[in-house]
């Protein structure tokens, strides 16, 4: 089947438990996710949502798999850009593996269509979000406070992970 896929890997000096908490504590998430609020209770089958400060919904989806502190899978669809929404659901997997004094975090984002605009859009944001997450866990501060250089982050196409 045709698909578009990105794989991101970062090694973070922390424990799988702390990283898991950082990935699922919605208050903590907001710090490295450029102020976007996540709504989710992290149970398989539960709804999942990313919401901008002004209340607009960026992305919606569903928790597919929760296996703390190893694996989290989210069914994910963009909600506010019609052409991205039209592409339907993507699948985002977080894999955590202990790695000599650190944790290897692999984020795989895939959609079942070739040349996906959605995957292209999130590919700009994931490195920033993950780099921020790494800085926050290792040094207590985020590296970036804005996703884009200009103020009109949203006109560039999207949600937290950067679509």
């Amino acid at each position, binding site marked *: 089947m045709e698909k578009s*896929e*990105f*794989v991101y*890997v970062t090694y973070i000096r922390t424990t799988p438990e702390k990283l898991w908490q950082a990935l699922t504590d919605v208050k903590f998430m907001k710090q490295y996710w450029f102020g976007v609020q996540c709504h989710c209770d992290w149970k398989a089958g539960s709804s999942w949502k990313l919401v901008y400060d002004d209340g607009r919904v960026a992305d919606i989806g569903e928790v597919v798999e929760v296996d703390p502190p190893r694996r989290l899978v989210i069914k994910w669809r963009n909600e506010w850009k019609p052409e991205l929404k039209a592409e339907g659901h993507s699948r985002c997997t977080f894999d955590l593996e202990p790695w000599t004094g650190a944790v290897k975090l692999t984020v795989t984002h895939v959609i079942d269509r070739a040349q996906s605009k959605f995957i292209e859009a999130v590919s700009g944001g994931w*490195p*920033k979000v993950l780099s921020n997450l790494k*800085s926050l866990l290792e040094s207590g501060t985020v*590296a*970036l406070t804005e996703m884009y250089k200009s103020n009109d982050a949203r006109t560039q196409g999207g949600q937290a992970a950067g679509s």
Partner: protein
Amino acid sequence: MCGVMDAVFKALADESRRKLLDQLHKSNGQTLGELCEHLDMTRQAVTKHLLLLEAANLVAVVWRGREKLHYLNPVPLQEIYGRWVEKYERHRLRALGDLKKGLEQNQPNQKKG
């Protein structure tokens, strides 16, 4: 994590390895065989370069059955950007902001004078 950044710069300091990254940027998730098709290098040379890129975390490897797929991992590049580009740009932008503020604040005085 000084050693990590050293590995990234070392990995980038080679034209063949930069070409490999470009190749993955064009089409992500390629096997060794697919990567070799587009490059004028022996399979052994490509393997060696890929190992260095993997060690620098610029290439992420995913096994699909017996296939080893290579993905461009831009996270270390983001860290370089954050440290060597964004940080300095921010200062320049702040300097411009201060200049603008200063000029705008001076305007009424100039009119008075």
